[in-house]
């Protein structure tokens, strides 16, 4: 574990000095600040933010994660020629990237709210869920990026695949779900739709956010079903387990591949 900590320390130093993370932080900071200042109130701001968060975080985490790993391949090789265990190195590389990304997101979003305050008490919970699910998405999509770039040696292919994967979760998956729902409109699909949601981390995060917003009333019958399921302790438990699984499984697949890989 000590080796992992050392890797994290130096990688974070490298990343903290890179302009990307600074821009990432400033992007969320300025966006939130701007919405709070001109958009009127914390509730509206949070609703506007939720769409940005759900699209931008996965995209940035997967692209930056894959690029970083491809870019530092030679240095990773050099680190592997040191007396360092591969598992510890991989853990260090992963956390050294995911933690600063998650931190700049959380800080960028949270700081303006600390400054401006909230309109309603329920907004505090909504902000916390938003930051929490954003951090989950950061860890999930960084893990996916690491898995892809460890598995695929060609940089262009790996980056292409990362973008396609993001597009799949952000757009294509929902389209397919809609198609299924339309085809089988005559059947009761509530349980199926809840299951579909669990298999897409982005949808999972979206549902968790929507339920905090009381906007589920707008979603009609499905919204009520979601509210009943994900609103219950049981549902929240399952959603959390699913998000943890979405982090752990790609990470584990990447780790396994990294440990056996020929460099």
């Amino acid at each position, binding site marked *: 574990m000590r080796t992992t900590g*050392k*890797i994290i*320390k130096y*990688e974070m*130093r490298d990343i903290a000095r890179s302009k990307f993370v600074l821009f990432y932080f400033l992007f969320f900071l300025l966006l939130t600040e701007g919405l709070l200042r001109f958009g009127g109130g914390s509730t509206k701001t949070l609703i506007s933010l939720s769409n940005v968060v759900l699209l931008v975080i996965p995209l940035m985490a997967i692209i930056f994660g894959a690029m970083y790993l491809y870019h530092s391949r030679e240095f990773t090789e050099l680190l592997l020629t*040191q*007396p*360092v265990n591969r598992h510890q190195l991989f853990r260090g590389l992963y956390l050294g990237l995911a933690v600063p990304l998650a931190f700049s997101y959380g800080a960028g979003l949270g700081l303006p709210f600390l400054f401006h305050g909230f309109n309603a008490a329920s907004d505090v919970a909504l902000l916390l869920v938003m930051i929490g699910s954003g951090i989950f998405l950061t860890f999930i999509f960084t893990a996916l990026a690491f898995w892809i770039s460890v598995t695929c040696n060609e940089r262009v292919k790996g980056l292409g695949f990362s973008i396609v994967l993001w597009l799949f979760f952000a757009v294509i998956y929902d389209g397919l779900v809609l198609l299924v729902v339309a085809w089988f409109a005559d059947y009761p699909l509530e349980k199926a739709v809840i299951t579909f949601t669990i298999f897409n981390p982005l949808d999972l995060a979206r549902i968790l956010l929507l339920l905090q917003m009381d906007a589920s009333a707008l979603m009609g019958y499905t919204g009520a079903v979601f509210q009943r399921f994900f609103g219950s302790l049981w549902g929240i438990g399952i959603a959390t387990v699913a998000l943890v699984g979405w982090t752990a499984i790609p990470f584990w697949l990447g780790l396994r591949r990294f440990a056996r890989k*020929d460099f």
Partner: protein
Amino acid sequence: MIVIRELYKSFGALQVLTGLNLSIEAGRITAILGPNGSGKTTLIKSILGLVKPDRGEIKIGEQVLNGDCRYRENIGYMPQIGRYPENLSLNDVMMMLQDLRGGEHQTDMELLKKFRLGKEMDKALGTLSGGTRQKVSVVLAMLFNPKILILDEPTSGLDPVASSIFKDALIEERAAGKTIILTSHIMSEVEELADEVVFLLDGKIRFHGSPAEIFQSTGESNLERGIARMMVETVYP
């Protein structure tokens, strides 16, 4: 002393190492030569643990490689292409490697001074030129005074001054009893430095001996022609 026995490695359908046997002695500079794709880099990376062989045994000193990473404390490696984290300085990277190795290490700063890298110590590595990065690679490889030095095409980007500083350092290390392995395509350099030449072809060793033996067996008087003749004779008999 490094002893390699019956080493096999394939990448998919491509057989790269096919039952390679080799022993590399301490206190000598061993040059590994061979045409492109002959398995030089795979051999080096197997010793480093970067590539996991399919079969065979590698023994470094008394230690048989088995996945334990500690043997690498005694190895310094200089890669063919040195790329470093863009926003870290040489100082940071040196501290990082020292940290990773843990404990107290005597670091060899002599080369750093000879290369006049002092004023580059705190600059971001991403801003350094290719040649300077190559010097950084040399410095990092020799930093911990390792018993074994593995150098992959070490002089390809160095200017003549840096190159001769580097060669002097190698000769010094050899005198100190280090095991030194290098690959190179510059035959004059191999001729100048190497005590042993290992000629690799199709994943096997076709020749292992001193440069003088190559001259003798091929009747040529310089290494480039000797090696070329050997290639021609073994590839097109």
